[in-house]
């Protein structure tokens, strides 16, 4: 019986056992749900498979040429630009509020909590909250009428020229708090005496921001920017829940999901997913390499 107690084994036997036993499940999960889909996706992208029938044919690069030649498929990249620009607004606001809240200020914890809170909310709830916010005679219209801007109200979600601005705005509302809290954490890890020394030297707040805060959070800033760019290209939740891609709000991922699960064009959808994956990996690698170069 004693043999079955692991503690009676030699350490070298235990070592082999524990390495295998502790790795097998995490590795199996990682392979099955992270890598296998990528491998399959590449394979499907060269086929005309509809996702359920028994047979399919290989069609070479047809799906890829279609994505880049048919405007219906590549115009979704233009929609990404709205979210991309919104990303910079989001970063700017987050940095501004993180900076002013890192100095002595009244009601610090209150403002910190309120600015961060939207990030924690359920995505579907946020979608509905902003449907109500933007609907005719909804929150925004009523507010504008109340302050005398009534004649400028729009069909925020009905006008194809504005819809992506509205949706990107909702996205800024949702994600700004995340960047804010990360920046705030990074800024507050700067030692206090650095500020005190610069105070003695007569530095003003702007100079402190420019020469103390900004340099010490460059890395975090870059990292967040990359995450946000990948996020902009893969925008899905908010536009899917709110408009399902109608009125010109179709994003890359909504398009992919529709093609794969609604129209049975799994081959084409896979090609789109491959393109998206390559873009995200490229952006991330560029950032990692440029960050290494600075160290």
């Amino acid at each position, binding site marked *: 019986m004693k043999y079955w107690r692991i503690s009676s084994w030699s350490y070298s036997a235990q070592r082999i056992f*524990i390495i295998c036993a502790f790795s097998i499940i*995490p590795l199996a999960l990682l392979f099955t*749900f992270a*890598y296998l889909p990528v491998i*399959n996706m590449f394979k499907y992208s060269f086929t005309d498979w509809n996702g359920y029938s028994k047979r399919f044919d290989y069609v070479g690069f047809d799906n890829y040429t279609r994505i880049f030649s048919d405007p219906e498929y590549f115009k979704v990249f233009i929609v990404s630009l709205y979210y991309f620009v919104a990303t910079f607004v989001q970063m700017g606001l987050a940095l501004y509020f993180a900076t002013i809240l890192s100095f002595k200020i009244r*009601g610090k914890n209150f403002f910190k*909590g309120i600015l961060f809170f939207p990030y924690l909310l*359920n995505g579907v709830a946020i979608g509905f909250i902003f449907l109500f916010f933007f609907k005719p005679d909804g929150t925004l219209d009523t507010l504008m009428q109340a302050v005398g801007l009534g004649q400028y109200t729009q069909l925020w979600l009905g006008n194809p020229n504005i819809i992506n601005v509205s949706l990107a705005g909702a996205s800024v*509302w949702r994600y700004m708090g995340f960047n804010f809290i990360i920046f705030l954490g990074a800024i507050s890890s700067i030692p206090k005496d650095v500020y005190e020394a610069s105070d003695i030297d007569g530095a003003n707040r702007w100079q402190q921001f420019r020469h103390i805060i900004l340099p010490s959070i460059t890395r975090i800033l870059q990292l967040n920017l990359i995450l946000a760019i990948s996020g902009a290209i893969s925008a899905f939740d908010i536009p899917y829940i709110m408009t399902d891609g109608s009125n010109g709000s179709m994003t890359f991922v909504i398009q992919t999901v529709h093609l794969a699960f609604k129209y049975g064009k799994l081959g084409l959808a896979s090609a789109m997913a491959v393109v998206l994956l390559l873009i995200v990996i490229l952006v*991330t690698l560029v950032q990692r390499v440029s960050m290494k170069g600075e160290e």
Partner: protein
Amino acid sequence: MNVNQFKYTIASIIKYVSLILAAFIALLPIVVILFASLKTNAEYANSSPLAPPANWLNFANYAKAFVDGNMLVGFKNTIIILIISIVGATLTGSMIAYVLDRFKFKGKKIMVAAFLLATLIPSVTTQVATFQIINALDLFNTRWAAIVMYLGTDIIAVYIFLQFLGSISSALDESAMLDGASYFTIYWRIILPLLKPAIVTVIIVKGVNIYNDFYTPFLYMPKTDLQVISTALFKFKGPFGSQWEVISAGIMIAIIPTMIIFLLLQKYIYNGFAQGSVK
């Protein structure tokens, strides 16, 4: 009042005005939903969205949303998935982190790289192919579909544990080995308890992600019995169409748990996200 003082006062005013404005923008969209959720149907139709409800204790919409919207089922499924996924992620994540941090062996570098590289893959892009795998494993329309996805594709737990383990001295392991403790005992009795702060971070980061995730349950668990909070709420879009007072109550029911947890655990939540994001 000299020029400097004047500048300082102006800066102060701008600072507070911008903060109050931001707080207003952050809260207003939610507050109007709270107002709407407490109004009767006629009251909602005849009042401005910005007007508070006549009766602050009118919970009729909440009862309707909760019962007709099947939100109890949603909460039940969300909690089951949440608990199994978090316990699973804590165990698998800490096990692999223990092996990768404490042992040297052939293929270790490749394993670390495999976990690192996986963070680059946005899971939303690979759904087209993941669907076939879930189907082949016969997991479609079961809770396990969501659970295995949360365990397999969200590598954040492994990261947090690896980072934290690096700061726990291996002298502890060695002295336990002198007492004859097995590697498993070292993991279970020494490493796992010491990982407690990291476990709190994992619970918070994964908990928020899972509670708010819409995509996975929507795609893999369409059955009504299996709906989670997100998908239960999403279904309000059809039958309640323009009954915004009921939809608003549904929204509030979905966000009240988040609000309570946030108020209770603020400090841990800030730290959790600050740590969880630094890769």
